[in-house]
């Protein structure tokens, strides 16, 4: 039985780099058996008690129940695993520490190898958990509250950043514009819900993509956020009302066109015919549609994970870690955490 279990290549993934405490069981880096994301809502409902939004204490409280539940739902135990994968960078040091210490403890107690994984790279592996899976090489666009990165992936080991934000991340822009418009938090879904009710061409916003000597595929979302702010102030000064759905629709269209445009331009320049999108902003319907529309013009295949794999989760961490574990690699118990990639 042990042999059969081992051949399933089961990896326990652990993710605590930001606000979510997540644990998942994944087979062979491609088949998700279970995934638990302890959001505040779930925790409040199930475990009760007050859960501070960002404290690493929150991860401490959530990590063991999340792991027990992930193993239960998958119907496996520690004996069935071939190893553990855990995010150790980038993120809040105190939060990362909880996941890493937990992974090390399990690795030691169960005598299993563990590998440390980069959170940004892990996002890309969400696309390996669904069919069709991308083949190397490909271009990856990782867009979330904290990241806006374009990367060229030659293979599992070789990848390089070719574009980044120089100030705010794309998801942060969604959140702050939502705040300016008086919409709820998180801002991305709020803008997305309202966008279909407005005109995407209502306002001509500045392009957040930068293309200069510092970088061909960089972004500045701070300027776009400020443009929305000025627009609102101007309308107010002129005594005009503001059509919030129009702002939401045109802002979302601008961001989607800019991100997708940069991704397709970068793919072309680097001779790549596959683009993988990942991260929380990859859940945005405007960006998903824009990617699909551009791919329909031919020449490039896009890989868009289902929405539950776009936001922070542990299955992507397990999938990313499986590659190294399958080669027999392991990190040692002295491994540390890093705030940067």
């Amino acid at each position, binding site marked *: 039985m042990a042999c059969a279990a081992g051949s399933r290549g089961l990896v326990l993934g652990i993710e605590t780099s930001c606000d979510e405490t997540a644990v998942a069981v994944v087979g062979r880096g491609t088949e998700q058996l279970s995934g638990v994301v302890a959001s505040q809502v779930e925790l409040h409902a199930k475990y009760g008690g007050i859960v501070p939004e*960002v404290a690493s204490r929150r991860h401490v409280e959530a990590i063991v129940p999340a792991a027990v539940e992930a193993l239960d739902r998958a119907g496996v135990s520690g004996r069935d695993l071939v190893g553990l994968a855990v995010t150790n960078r980038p993120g809040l040091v105190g939060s990362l520490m909880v996941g890493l210490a937990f992974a090390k403890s399990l690795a030691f107690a169960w005598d299993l190898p563990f590998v440390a994984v980069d959170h940004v790279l892990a996002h890309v592996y969400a696309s390996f958990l669904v069919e069709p899976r991308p083949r190397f090489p490909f271009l990856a666009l990782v867009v*979330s509250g*904290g990241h806006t990165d374009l990367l060229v992936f030659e293979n599992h080991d070789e990848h390089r950043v070719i574009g*980044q*934000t120089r*100030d*705010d991340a794309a998801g*942060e822009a969604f959140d702050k514009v939502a705040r300016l418009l008086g919409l709820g938090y998180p801002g991305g879904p709020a803008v997305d819900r309202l966008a279909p009710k407005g005109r995407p061409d209502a306002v001509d916003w500045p392009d957040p993509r930068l293309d200069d000597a510092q970088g061909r595929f960089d972004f500045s979302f*701070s300027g776009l956020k400020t443009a929305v702010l000025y627009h609102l102030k101007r309308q107010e000064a002129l005594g005009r009302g503001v059509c919030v759905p129009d702002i939401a629709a045109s802002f979302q269209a601008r961001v989607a066109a800019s991100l997708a445009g940069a991704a397709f331009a970068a793919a072309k320049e680097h001779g790549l015919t596959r683009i993988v999108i990942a991260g929380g902003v990859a859940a945005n319907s405007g960006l998903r549609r824009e990617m699909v529309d551009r791919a329909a013009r031919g020449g490039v295949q896009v890989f868009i994970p289902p929405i539950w794999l776009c936001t922070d989760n542990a299955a992507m961490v397990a999938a990313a870690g499986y590659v190294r574990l399958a080669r027999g690699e392991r990190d040692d118990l002295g491994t540390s955490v890093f*705030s940067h990639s």
Partner: protein
Amino acid sequence: METVGEAVVSPDTKGCRWAFEAETRSPGETRDLARAVGRAAGDGLVVLLSGPLGAGKTVFAQGLLEGLGVAGRVASPTFTLVNEYRARLPAWHIDLYRLDGEADFAAIGGDELLLGGLGVVVVEWAERLGDLVPAEHMRVSLALPEYGAAPGEARRLSVEVRGRGLKPVADAVARRLESMAGRCPA
């Protein structure tokens, strides 16, 4: 009161407090002022930035870290909460935008950074800090002008520097504002 161009310097309360009012005309000018602060910064400098969305807090923080010698990008820490840098001095860039109050700030280790006296700590949305502020610090409040009252990119800055040890920082701000005052009319 002594007027330096557009900057009003009200010195002194015993050499331990300096206050400046200034107007920058562009993000570039805000960044230049912050760079001068970064160059003059010493261990234990705490810079508290406040002001509404789009006022230029991140621009100020970017300039300050550049002045400290941080190479490469300085991205917004809104989601990461704390970004750490190694430059001439270690530096931490903190954003309280998503935090509720002092308890959350302590939970991310902010109180230790703020009161530790090590390196340089820059805090955005510092108005949410409450009383958790060391005696010696620099406070920069950025404001957007009323619509139509000034060019769109102009910002009002109120700068307050407290503590004898921060005299080099106050001097750097005064020098920078003096040279800005000599610029051509907009």
